[in-house]
């Protein structure tokens, strides 16, 4: 009886996961194929395959500038939002004070605010202050929306952090800085890492905020959208596929580095 149940469970698990993987990757695969079409227009089935558009995309100066903008914005947003979010998360998840709950709710509210409206509002503000929108204003706009998200991600880790550990470190003679360096930060690292990853991805893929606040500077999502609206070429899916592959390569690379580091630590521990 039990084995029958187990076989059925396994079958359902497999069926479900296969469905999920297909549902996620089929559209991506179609997009990737679209980039490999020789024809200029988006049509299925693809008649002649070619890497022509990939080559053009790779060589395009315009695209280089786009990628640079997107990477720069995403990196700056990642660093700043992790910094803000780390201390913000500590403030409401670690220390008890009056109004921490109100602070937590206020902080999370911008997440629910529709991004196009937020982008427009910020643009109006920049105009009122006499700042002309560039990629720098886009960084500010991204931060407004991303810092709350990252704060939430890091706060989850901070909530599970036992403050007694800091007391114990102090009781064993450690200064505040030493405690932060050797106890608090190492324990919160996983949360900080995932927060940073979220920040980068949310900034990298953000369209509505960049549309309003980046001014004449373009980012990858902005360019993709404008090309879809007018002047489509297979460079659009080609660029999309390239960034997906890059992300996959980075993830695999990161995993590999982690694996190697862990193995080195284990070897060293065994040597001792």
């Amino acid at each position, binding site marked *: 009886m039990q084995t029958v149940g187990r076989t059925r469970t396994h079958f359902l698990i497999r069926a479900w996961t296969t469905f999920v993987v297909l549902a996620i990757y089929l559209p991506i695969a179609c997009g990737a194929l679209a980039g490999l079409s020789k024809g200029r227009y988006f049509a299925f089935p693809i008649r002649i395959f070619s890497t022509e558009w990939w080559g053009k995309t790779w060589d395009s100066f315009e695209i280089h500038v786009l990628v640079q903008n997107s990477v720069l914005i995403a990196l700056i947003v990642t660093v700043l939002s992790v910094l803000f979010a780390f201390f913000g998360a500590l403030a409401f998840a670690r220390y008890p004070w009056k109004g921490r709950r109100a602070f937590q709710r206020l902080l999370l509210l911008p997440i629910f605010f529709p991004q196009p409206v937020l982008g427009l509002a910020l643009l109006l503000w920049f105009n009122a202050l006499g700042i002309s929108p560039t990629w720098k204003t886009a960084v500010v706009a991204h931060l407004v929306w991303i810092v709350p998200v990252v704060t939430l991600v890091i706060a989850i880790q901070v909530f599970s952090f036992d403050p*007694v*550990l800091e*007391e*114990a470190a*102090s009781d*064993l*003679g450690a200064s505040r800085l030493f405690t932060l360096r*050797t106890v608090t930060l190492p324990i919160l690292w996983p949360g900080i890492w995932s927060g940073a990853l979220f920040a980068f991805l949310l900034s990298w893929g953000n369209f509505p905020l960049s549309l309003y606040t980046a001014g004449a500077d373009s980012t990858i999502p902005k360019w993709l959208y404008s090309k879809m609206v007018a002047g489509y070429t297979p460079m659009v899916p080609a660029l999309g596929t390239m960034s997906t592959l890059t992300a996959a390569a980075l993830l695999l690379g990161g995993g590999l580095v982690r694996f190697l580091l862990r193995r080195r630590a284990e070897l060293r521990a065994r040597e001792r």
Partner: protein
Amino acid sequence: MSSVAASAQSDSPAASRTPRPVLQLVDVRKVFDGFAAVDGISLDIEEGEFVTIVGPSGSGKTTLLRMLAGLESPSEGYITLRGELINDVPSNRRPTCLVFQSLALFPHMTVGDNIEFPLRVRKMAPEERRKRALELMAKVRLPEDYYSKNVMLCSGGEKQRVALARAFAYDPDVLFFDEPLSALDYKLKKLLEKELKDLHRESGKTFVYITHSLEEAMVMSDRIGVMRAGKVVQIGTPEQIYSTPADRFVAEFFGEVNIVPIRRADGGWLRRDGKPVAVAPDLDIVGDEASVVIRPEYMRFVTEEAGADNTLTGTIFNEYSLGSRLQYQVRSRTGRTFLIEVPRAAAWKGDGEVTIGWDAGNAIVVGG
């Protein structure tokens, strides 16, 4: 009750033994939002002593310990360590170390790294650190190969030993313990209590331990202080506390007891049911109300052959086996419940109706 609090400092036998206390508390108070968690405690702790503070939860014992460790500062009063005022000295500048209830082991470190933490703070060289850690691991009976083990993979008892080794690595003058054994099973607890006592003797350090368990306090301590509502109601050797509790609270706290309320009448004492009570002749009670405290093992069944100074009748309504001994619950005619404990050989053979009693010399009379 107030006369009891005043006697807190008086009956310490150690006071005459060593002239200078290592830790001294004078009228220490700690107030949180208008609530006095610690409400005026004066206490001397002698060099090399094992002092246990016992009390129910909420009695302020943890707050007291946190002030001694430097994790809270007192609202009023003075705490001195070897004659120096340490009220506002932060925990990382005190030569004291606290073993937390949760142990507070660093979960991202190995056993070795945990133990070496205080040595790393002092910038000791890695090789020396490692040597010292291994020495300490031997001292607390941790196998050497645990050095590179993830501390979160250790069992409860092993974690206990790691926490202890880490505290010793700090080499403090005074060690504090905040019920570190409370989460362990009975057998392991008993074993670690004995090891802790051995460690205390070998190291010669001063230990201050808090717990809510009478048994733990009795096994390990040189002196026991009983806390209630932010005050120390009695302090003395385990023997003193057990045999001469200062009041009903202490008597009841230290195990199951029978309480018989009595009142003064015509130079003698009467029970609630109007019968006279035989008490020890040298009784010194202020006021007209008092309680006779009789431990279950001093209660016995009264028969024609074996009488007792005081007797009462009732019915047995419960019987428990404690292994070599038996306990009975007896309900008296006035509706009070009495607990009586006898050797298995003296088990009650008759029906439910019994007469039980106690001798005046075996009972303690406390005021109130």
